[in-house]
């Protein structure tokens, strides 16, 4: 049996498993006996690209083996702290988004292409910290801003998603914000106004930490992994493609209460 390596973001951990991504996502979301549920976001890790990463990979070989009854080993935690920073960006070969009920959408990495039109962004940081930020920076600039050593406040590597701002993107006072499921829209408007009023200000924190699961339907453009060397983009399919080609996942993603 193949041993897979997964980098989970919620919680941050490097996991070895004998389950392929869809099965692992199902298992990770709902557990082995359906006593719990919760969304999961994880990357497939290409072991050959890990280089000399400081990771206990020999442990995976030794302990990630089938059970006595022949059933596969579902998860073996190899690292649970500062795992992301030890996995090179190039080793992340696919992003998997598992819904509460275990439906998995797999997204392939792409080179980041700057969309110059957007001047206001809403970012949800996913790992290793989880604040929600409004920013005038595009994803590449934002990743650089967060991981650059020139700032006192920085992390070695960051995973974040860009969330939709709807009509607030161009007008923080726009009244039609009906389909934005964020708590405390008034505060979000204040943050956007503050950002707009101070051209020198690059970011403004909306929430100090993530209090809900990520509503996948709010992800716009995709999920990004950035570090001082660059950024990798994992763009989600268009809504039409989700509706047509990934219907089961899309329905589940919309049913999630975000708790």
């Amino acid at each position, binding site marked *: 049996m193949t041993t897979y390596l997964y980098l989970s973001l919620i919680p941050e951990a490097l996991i070895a498993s004998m389950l392929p991504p869809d*099965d692992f996502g*199902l298992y990770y979301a*709902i557990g082995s*006996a*359906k*006593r719990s*549920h919760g969304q999961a976001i994880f990357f497939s890790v290409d072991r050959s690209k890990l280089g000399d990463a400081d990771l206990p990979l020999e442990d995976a070989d030794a302990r990630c083996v089938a059970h006595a009854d022949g059933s596969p080993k579902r998860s073996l935690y190899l690292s649970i702290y500062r795992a992301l920073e030890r996995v090179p960006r190039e080793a992340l070969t696919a992003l998997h988004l598992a*819904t*509460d*009920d*275990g439906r998995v959408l797999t997204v392939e990495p792409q080179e980041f292409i700057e969309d110059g039109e957007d001047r206001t962004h809403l970012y949800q940081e996913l790992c290793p910290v989880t604040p929600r930020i409004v920013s005038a920076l595009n994803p590449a600039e934002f990743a650089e801003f967060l991981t650059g050593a020139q700032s006192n406040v920085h992390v070695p590597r960051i995973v974040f998603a860009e969330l939709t701002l709807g009509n607030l993107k161009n007008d923080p006072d726009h009244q039609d914000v*009906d*389909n*934005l*499921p*964020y*708590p405390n*829209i008034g505060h979000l408007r204040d943050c956007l106004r503050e950002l707009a009023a101070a051209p020198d200000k690059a970011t403004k924190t909306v929430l100090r930490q993530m209090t809900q699961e990520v*509503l996948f*339907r*709010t992800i716009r453009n995709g999920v990004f992994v950035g570090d001082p060397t660059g950024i990798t983009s994992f763009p989600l399919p268009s809504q039409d493609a989700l*509706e*047509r080609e990934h*219907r*089961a996942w899309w*329905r*589940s993603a*919309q*049913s*999630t*209460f*975000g*708790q």
Partner: protein
Amino acid sequence: MPAWFWLVPVASIVALGAAYGFFRQMMKESEGTETMARIAAHVRAGAIAYLKQQYKVVGIVLVSLTLVFCVLAYVFHMQNPWVPFAFLTGGLFSGLAGFIGMRTATYASARTANAARQSLNHGLRVAFRSGAVMGLTVVGLGLLDIAIWFLVLTRYYGTDDAQQVVVITTTMLTFGMGAAVQSLFARVGGGIFTKAADVGADLVGKIEAGIPEDDPRNPATIADNVGDNVGDVAGMGADLYESYVGVILASAALGAAAYLTSGAEIQLKAVIAPMVIGALGSLLSVIGVFLVSTKEGATPKQLLASLGRGVNGSAVMIAVTSLLVLAMMGMPNLWGLWLALIVGLLTGITIGRAAEYFTSQGYKPTMRIAGAAKTGPATVIIGGIGEGMMSVAIPVLAVVSGTGLAYFFGSGYSFGTDTMSLGLYGIGMAAVGMLSTLGITLATDAYGPIADNAGGNAEMSGLPPEVRERTDALDSLGNTTAATGKGFAIGSAALTGIALLASYIEEVKIGISHVLDRGVDYVFPDGSSIASTAVEQLEGLSLMEMMTRYEVVLINPKVIIGMFSGAMLAFLFSGITMKAVGRAAGLMVDEVRRQFRDIPGIMSGDAEPDYARCVSISTKAAQHEMMFPSILAISAPVVIGLIFGVPGVLGLLAGAGAAGFSLSMFMANTGGAWDNAKKYIEEGHHGGKGSKAHEAAVIGDTVGDPFKDTSGPGLNILVKLMSMEAIVVAGFTVAVSLV
């Protein structure tokens, strides 16, 4: 027999023939893919399993009550000897109407989904014509039952003696009780079943497991779909069958009493006029069905308009043709009776529109509830209850205005008590007007669950998005028509209740005549009496004189006790049925959790859940839980009658009618508004799916489930059943009341 009477059996045969034709047409459609057919088969098997169990229980109840009535009729001579048989046929026909409707609906859902793969219009036509099978079966069987009994009884009693015609009509009225018992079990049992499955499926499937609606991995999802059929199709069919025949027979009885001294010919015309109007309406309903079609890509408004074309077309046609028919029949007070009929039609439309206004997400009340969701579940509940309470005003005002106007027109433009019988006949004709086009209004109602199940089937079968968009459009339309249909059902129950109050007095007179027949003088509560040799004295008593002799005045404690008991019963019944849903849903929750735990591979889709077990649990729970409310409804008029006599029973019926109608409307509208407030948010308002407002609205919707589908509709039947039963046991009440 007047020639016009023969329109009744002819219309019955035409309606049943058309229903059969539509059924055959639907059956020729393909069920689609293997998966679609498999899912439909699961739902069909579950529905049949439920009905089998329900009919077993109802069968026992019907036979037991028939035996009781036999004893009362043949041993104690307190009742007309035809009552046990009339009672039994009412129950059988009502059950048959529900069974045929549900059978059709369960065959139609996959076919509708498959038709929607071709076009929206094709989907609409299959769903609507399948709904029409139910509507036309109900009116066809109702008219058949009426025609057969009328022919049998007129052959036995003759129609020359005016008093005998009164006996015929009041005897026929008793088959309404059989239908009422059947509909109580169908509506309440079906309501408990469907909401237990729905709430169970939602609580574990959606909230705990996070899986979406209509997902085949949810073990309760088939039970949920079965529930739509047993509650909204079989239950609604049996309920409206009872209303339909009840209204026609009550009006016939009122006509017999109102024209008692006008000569046999006029009296007989007054008796058959409601039947003829019903027959005419059923023929026009068949025509109306053919008016319903739409074009591809129709908007919800256009879809609603296409259904409206059928319903409104039939209503306009009945308004015009009923005047011609009443004129050709040579009815006295032609314009007055016709205006009463029109008042009934308008009252029905007003109640339906009011229900739509207060429950549709296109209007302010539901939008306000959705807005309240932004501040959490508590404000959703408060807002919903507030709007629901306010929603009672228009229907009640419509019913009281309609009652007043129909009385005014029926009595020959007077509110005087000297023409009370004529005025009450006018109220009866108004109720007949409201339900005259039941064939098509019920078609729009039964269409709802068919479209809903078609959507579920399309979802579970993984049909392409454009097909699901079409079934969603059909389903969304079904939600609106269902709210309107419930408004009609409740409104007609209110008018029927009022008509039955007057019929009750006629039945009391017949009960007294049975006492006199035994050679015993009858003493009224006011001390006056009728000697056993002076039966003609009894026949000459007007309604007001009967009220005086029975001391039916507001300050009589017997009346007040009855009224308060009736009002209390409406709340008690609602409470019991709501708690029943809670308990049954608890069993479902346990079962769904067990299956997730014990059957590996459900969540990955590798193993199929045990759907049948969930259906079985809901079935057993529904049968068990409906026993107490049914016993309560059946025993109340007997107990109150036994203790407080006729004044107590009249108080009971008045109290239950007033409170039950208002409470029923409140519960149906509140539940509907909560449901649609959630849908409004899901459409992308106040944060849309996944927002805190959505979460709060989901709680409101769950609370509203037993409101709108169990207790609310159940209350109609409580009121009607108690009225019918009071009529059936009037002889017993007259003979043995204690106080």
